[in-house]
């Protein structure tokens, strides 16, 4: 199993959500981060203080998937997040030893498949 981390533009977040959904990725966690990379820095001025903003807002997805799902998860992330301009973000794939579903104590594959209530 792998933990896939995707860092994307906030304005693409909803597109990513949608493409994850289309790719049958049904469980993930998301948070706001600030990223630094090759992007042009914008200048801000507050009264006499001028600053260059070295960080841009990004959204970070954290997705535990079974090994067979890795490719399509990566594709889904790229699909939703790509605009073609510098700053689109990165995907990291980490080895994942174990997953536990807190509610039931199930582990691994079973734990990453959500029940469907909706």
């Amino acid at each position: 199993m792998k933990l896939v981390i995707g860092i994307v533009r906030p304005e693409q977040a909803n597109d990513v959500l949608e493409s994850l959904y289309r790719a049958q990725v049904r469980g993930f966690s998301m948070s706001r981060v600030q990223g630094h990379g090759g992007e042009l820095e914008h200048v801000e001025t507050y009264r006499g203080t001028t600053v260059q903003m070295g960080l841009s807002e990004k959204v970070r997805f954290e997705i535990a998937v079974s090994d067979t799902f890795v490719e399509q998860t990566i594709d889904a992330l790229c699909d939703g997040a790509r605009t073609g301009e510098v700053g689109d973000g990165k995907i990291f794939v980490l080895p994942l030893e174990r997953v536990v579903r807190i509610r039931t104590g199930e582990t691994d594959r079973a734990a990453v498949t959500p029940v469907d209530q909706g």
Partner: protein
Amino acid sequence: MLSLPAGVNAGDTAWMLIATALVLMMTPALGLFYGGLVRSKNTLNTFMMSLAALGIVTVTWALIGYTLGFAPGGSLIGGLRFALLRGVTFAPRAGTAIPHLLFMAFEGSFAIITAALISGAVVERMRFGAFMVFIALWSVLVYPVLAHWVWGGGWLAQHGVLDFAGGVPVEMGSGFSALAAAIAVGARRDYHRQALLPHNALYVLLGAGLLWFGWFGFNGGSGYAVNQPSVLAFVNTLLCPACTLVVWFVLDALRDRRVTAIGAATAVVVGCVGITPAAGYISPMASMLLGAVAALPSYALIMWRPRTRLDESLDVLAAHGTAGLTGMLFIGFFAERSWNGIGNGLLFGHPAQLLWQGIAVLAGPAYAFIGTYILMRLVGAVMPLRASDRAQAVGMDVVEHGEEAYTTGEGAILVVASEGERRDRFATR
């Protein structure tokens, strides 16, 4: 020499001073209200549109707007006698017992907020420079004309149209201008693609509370005196929105078994708008009825509009245009001479009043809509009205103002340009 000239009444003047201050407070309150309704990346830009109105419209008003609205002139527009405030001094404004100068300021505060209201239709995508040019022109070419029609001796006034505190120029004026502006500027990039939600509903609630507070000056001051209409208008400005609020609760509950906070804030505005034209003309009980009645068309429009392609983003048309229209027509039915000392509506035996109120609710919106649309097109011919999709994605605050509403300062590299020393990246020691 320091005391007020003959004909000026001190009690009236005291009340009009504070009423004017209250109305001026409404424009920052509107900035807060609108600023909460947009996404956080556009909140400064949204507030700034209101603040820009305070700056720009005050200037245009003093230079030329006031005279076009209120100097003696034709039945369509006023003359130039008061241009650059010539002759606007301490002597009482004709028909009132307050200094002409104060009358000018009170009316100016109406022009300011009306211009600011229109911004609700174009937030989150209209370029700030274009908006400033637009409201400068609008405050000279649209607002004064509407004000002249009903208050400056124009044709609607001549035919006895009743509009206590601005159903035509302020409420329908802003509402239908907003409609035209939204059409001219076009929808936000993300409209119908994403949910565009209020980033801070507390700002919206507090903004609505402060607007209501200011509205007591808005309506209560529109008698230009401490007199019966003022007192009546003041009390009705409490009773009517309260009823709108209660009815809105009911409508929300019927729809979804829950009442919403954004809805309640909206209801306050709708109720205040509804009573605006009628405030000094109808009985307290009629104003409670008006509060209930005015909720219905505005509620319906607010529910329906977002399903259309019209991105009139903050529903100025529903909250101001429609509710103002309802109030204007309501006068035609419920005006009651025993309360207002001036005239009756249809229910009290004077159907002609309703006819002329009906004409006013056609003519005012038509002029506002057409005038705004033409002005927007003109401005758009000279400079782009809309921010690019990229700019909208980044947010208007950074793009148009080079600022963010909420910053932590992390990752901000000091630039100390003038001393030649460019700070090393990120920090210094």
